């Protein structure tokens, strides 16, 4: 276990280093630098030069990269060009929105998909299974933004039960904030649930055909015990893998739904920062995302060991 942890940690550091070089170079050669965006259609050579000097963009690639890494290693990080606050603070405050949003969405997805997937597998090719499959097909084909708008029109505009978007802030109103995340996380969760339902169903069907399950039936165990104790645990392994991938994807992939509900989340921050060439923000969010994905995969690895004792972490 210790060796496993050390190896994971080394992978993390090497990966982050590679990510940092890649993201820095890509942003360096991207047409349109921060000064050009700031001055926009009023840019003149003189004001551009002044602003580049003020932002430190007139220095060489090596110096700029070294400065950045230096600021990261000393724990200060960089300042956002547009927001004029440390990027570190920005990420934390945005994470307070996107983190719960992703977790709520995954909860919705799991709560919907597991029972439906198991039910469909148990009633393969019967009317119930066909109906479930039909709706998951529909869910896969539904764009998030469309479902998001539909929920707003229904719950906010027509019935006035929710606000149409925005986020009051956890310190201002805890329940208000949780409520603000309900519709967007439902929109995100329903679509992910479609994938998970289908996966649970097929995985379950496969496991139910295994020899040990036949043995369990032969022993005369009750159906509930066979399905929920013996089969489900093994059927969950591919589901957990996809769940881990989805979690990583959700952290950044909530851009669209954050725009529809104008939530101040991480996805919208990075989207806006790319558009405005707020390079320090883009760089550090990409680094953070890379670290988050590696961390989630680590958790997934641990979960395998719990689900299947044959998996050893070495």
């Amino acid at each position, binding site marked *: 276990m210790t060796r496993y942890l050390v190896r994971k940690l080394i992978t993390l550091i090497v990966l982050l280093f590679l990510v940092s070089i890649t993201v820095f170079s890509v942003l360096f050669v991207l047409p349109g630098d921060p000064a050009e965006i700031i001055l926009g259609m009023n840019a*003149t050579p003189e004001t551009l030069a*002044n602003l580049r000097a003020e932002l430190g963009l007139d220095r060489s690639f090596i110096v700029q990269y070294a400065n950045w890494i230096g600021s990261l290693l000393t724990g200060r990080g960089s300042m956002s060009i547009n927001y004029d606050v440390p990027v570190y603070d920005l990420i934390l405050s945005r994470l307070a929105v996107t983190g719960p949003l992703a977790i709520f969405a995954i909860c919705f997805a799991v709560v919907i998909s597991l029972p439906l997937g198991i039910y469909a597998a148990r009633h393969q090719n019967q009317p119930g299974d066909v109906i479930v499959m039909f709706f998951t097909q529909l869910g896969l084909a539904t764009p998030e933004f469309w479902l998001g708008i539909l929920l707003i029109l229904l719950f906010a*505009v027509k019935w006035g039960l929710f606000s149409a978007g*925005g986020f009051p802030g956890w310190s201002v109103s805890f329940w208000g904030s949780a409520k603000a995340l309900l519709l967007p996380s439902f929109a995100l969760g329903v679509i992910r649930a479609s994938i998970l339902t289908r996966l649970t169903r097929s995985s379950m069907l496969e496991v139910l055909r295994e020899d040990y399950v036949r043995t369990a039936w032969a022993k005369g165990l009750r159906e509930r015990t066979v399905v929920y104790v013996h089969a489900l645990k093994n059927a969950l392994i591919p589901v957990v893998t996809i769940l881990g991938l989805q979690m990583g994807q959700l952290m950044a992939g909530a851009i669209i739904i954050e725009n529809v509900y104008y939530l*101040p989340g991480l996805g919208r921050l990075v989207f806006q920062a790319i558009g405005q060439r*707020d390079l320090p923000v883009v760089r550090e969010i990409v680094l953070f995302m890379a670290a988050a994905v590696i961390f989630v995969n680590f958790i997934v690895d641990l979960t395998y060991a719990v689900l299947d004792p044959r998996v050893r972490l070495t």
Partner: protein
Amino acid sequence: MKKLLFILIALTLFLPVQAISASNPVKGGNLVVAQPAEPPGLDPTANTAAAIDRVVWANVFETLVKVDDQGQVLPGLAKEWNVSADGKIYTFSLRAGVKYHNGEPFNAEVAKWNLERAMGPKTVNPHPEYFRVIENIQTPAENTLKITLKDVDALFLVHMAEGDASLLPITGYKDAKSHPIGTGPFKFAKWVRGDRVELTRFDGYWNPELPYLDKVTFRFISDASAQTAALMAGDIDVIGWIGSPESALELAKNKRFKVLDGASTSDMILSTNNKAEPFNNLKVRQAMAHAIDRQMIIDLAMSGFGTPIGSHWSPAAPYYVDMAGTYPYDLEKAKQLLAEAGYPGGFEAVLQVPPKYAYTVRVGEVLVDQFSKIGIRLKMENIEWGQWIKRIFLNKEYQLTIIGHAEAWDIGIYANPKYYFQYDSQEFRDAYAKALKAPNEKEKAKWFGETQRIIARDAVNGFLISSPSLPVMKAEVMGWWKNYPTIALDCTKVWLKK
């Protein structure tokens, strides 16, 4: 027809309401305003983004003079001013006893410091040229500011009313990007990044009658359908500039809301690279001008809102000359001109549009169809805004693009042959110089009119439409600007009918 119907509805719905209530504004209340873009910092003297001026200009920061929604120049921090007979010396009498939100006093020395900072060698002001016409600044008394210009500049005064000329406090200016401190009717309270900026009433404002509101919150909602949904759900009170004109049409039918169909300074044009083949040929540009059906653009892309233009000047601004009829819609004439230019079968070209501004894509689609009728086959490509600035605006690597030029009084860009249109005309430069040095209103009107005629005649760009202002709000919001003659969402005199 659609537009006529809309105007009728608007008239019957709102005129009586405004007539009754315009007399006695009520104090108090909170206003939530949605605007699509979040400002990149809140210092209007260090960044050109229109989103900054829309939040802080006239609300937090003030200028020597200001404009109202009719484009009239009014007293601002200067209560009056006079100009010497030769037009070169401006003497401003500043308001006495004005304080910044942090308690710093405002006086002539502060104004001088601001102007010198904007024109200095290290300036990051987007428009140093507004200030560089100044030869020297004197402060003969605490509240007297005497500015001597190097030469007569007909636009000096209106430039002093723009966000770039905001007057910041000498010690409090440093954090202006994240904590702006001004003399305006509202003081900065909080910026929840990614969500909103909150401004609260400044009790020490020099005009004790104003502002009427206790609090103004600017929320940043970029998605056009989300803006509309938020207004309908009651989360916001005003959409400062609606992203989808078709929603304005819908909302105008609802008694709870009103839509103000005013003018703005934004001239939407088909920017043309005058140095690139085949657009360096006047006949090609004239042919294209004849092939543009502006009313169809207004109907199809803008849901009937907007005014056709034939030159680069807002119909809302003084000295406007209607040039929309210079090259009337005439496909036969267009084909003939193309043939004369050596392109009897038309040609292919690339039209690049930045989807960040949704209207460019909509208008682009209509134009592609219109030009196909005379054999010009346009390939429309999307381009990201940062790349637009770099490739099209700075490097001029393009043939055609669509964009709204939002700044007021910006016809001077045609005098710069290095500007991205690459239009080079001594005749225009002479006329513009005469307009700037015009000694009186009559001469100003004559020469600014002439500049409009020259670029219309030369068909420098495809002049399309003047964008509508289109603020949409709850029926009880009063005193909102109908026209946007400058880049601003001024809440000073806005109030809520109970």
